[in-house]
């Protein structure tokens, strides 16, 4: 294609995008009011990221995110329409206005914060050390001389390797599943894994293992289109309320089998 045509096409596309964006910004001021007058809030969520987002036996969106979205719609006094999105397309869904909000396990990162506006954190994926009930240990120093399983080259491997004393025997397995198997079959007393992985442990061997201490965490926020300040303020208010009245704690217990992680309480101040 001749370059003049390409330039023309690019210019046309650019102008179009700009026109589109300007109208979006113009509408942004009363996004909250717009949702309320429509009577329905459209919320995008993942459906392939259990236990945060999944499809249940009735093939309906369910999970931690779905429960948060339900509570949000109830608080707003509007009907809820859950829109299944995927990891790669969730931000385009929001920016192009196909959904009003994302409750899609979107980890708050500086790069993403340039594209969307994040609320306070409403969920967290934490990495910690888990182990048998009878193993008394509560801080990294006490790992000395103990054996711990991790998935090779995972975030938990990096974290455990960083804090563990020299005498710790770190056994690296090929996957979380294999490391988990080693814990449950009794080959190792301790395991470094995420809280999501812990849900599986609880399923397989209820009540026999507990959390020893936390290594690191990634918090997730509800995302709104950039500039929708009133909507964002309302969402933050909702999250504060859900944190203080125990709603979020209940959702954590239901899906992750643990109370709300401390890091979520911290960020609400």
């Amino acid at each position, binding site marked *: 294609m001749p370059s003049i045509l390409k330039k023309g096409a690019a210019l046309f596309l650019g102008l179009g995008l700009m026109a589109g964006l300007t109208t*979006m910004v113009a509408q942004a001021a009363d996004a909250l009011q717009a949702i309320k007058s429509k009577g329905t809030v459209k919320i995008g969520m993942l459906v*392939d990221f*259990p236990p945060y987002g*999944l*499809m249940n*036996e009735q*093939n309906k969106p369910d999970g931690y995110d779905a429960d948060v979205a339900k509570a949000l719609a109830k608080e707003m006094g509007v009907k809820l329409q859950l829109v299944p999105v*995927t990891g790669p397309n969730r931000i385009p869904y929001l920016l192009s206005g*196909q959904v009003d909000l994302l409750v899609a396990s979107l980890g708050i990162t500086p790069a993403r914060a340039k594209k969307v506006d994040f609320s306070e954190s409403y969920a967290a994926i934490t990495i910690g050390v888990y182990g048998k009930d009878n193993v008394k240990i509560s801080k990294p120093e006490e790992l000395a001389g103990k054996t711990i399983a991790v998935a090779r080259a995972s975030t938990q491997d990096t974290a455990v390797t960083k804090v563990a004393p020299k005498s710790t025997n770190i056994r690296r397995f090929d996957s979380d599943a294999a490391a988990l198997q080693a814990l449950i079959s009794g080959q190792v007393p301790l395991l470094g894994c995420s809280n*999501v992985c812990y849900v599986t442990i609880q399923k397989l061997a209820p009540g026999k293992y507990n959390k020893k201490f936390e290594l690191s965490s990634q918090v997730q926020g509800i995302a709104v289109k950039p500039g929708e300040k009133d909507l964002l303020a309302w969402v933050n208010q909702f999250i504060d309320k859900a944190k203080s009245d125990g709603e979020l704690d209940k959702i954590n217990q239901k899906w992750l089998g643990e109370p709300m992680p401390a890091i979520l309480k911290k960020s609400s101040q």
Partner: protein
Amino acid sequence: MIRPFGWNEFELILFAVRWTIVLAVMAFVGGGIGGLIVALLRTSDSRVLRVATIVFIRVFQGTPLLMQLFLAYFGMTILGFSVNPLVAAMVALTAHASAYLGEIWRGCIEAVPSGQSEAATALGLRYFNRMRCVVLPQAARIAVPPTVGFLVQLLKETSLASIIGFVELTRQAQIIDSVTFRPFLVFSIVAAIYFAMCWPLSLAARRLERKFAQATVR
């Protein structure tokens, strides 16, 4: 959050096939009509029409279907047109299939000896009848194998529509896999379902080829 893979999960995957079929039928019909138009314009006598069609073909053959779907859905919305996913998928799949089928069929039309067209003109047939009665029937015979080959590929490509929210066969399988952790089972089932759709297409093509061959045996 593991749940066993049972009959319910199998049914969910099986029923997701309806979207694959809807998307494929849309692409076949839209692409068939669009492809014929593109092929005819591409072989027309007007230079302007030919160049315009070449640009169309280059653009849609030169960009991935995934991007076309993405732009048709999200791009249109950003430009201020609210499109529903079905319309966006129809537009993108039709344009994509038209570009490919148009180019395949152009080759088939050009493969018909030019003497045929000249003889038809000599008999006083105008463009429409010349194409309908002389050129296209002969081109169609050559077109069967490459067309079916492309349609089979297109049927499998409908899985890309999951980017704009269609939960078709492949996407449903990913969702089920994420809660059952049985990837080999899930994706084997999906492969078998795709095969069950594509194989009859190939069989039908073989029969059609044989029929054409018998009809023109000397």
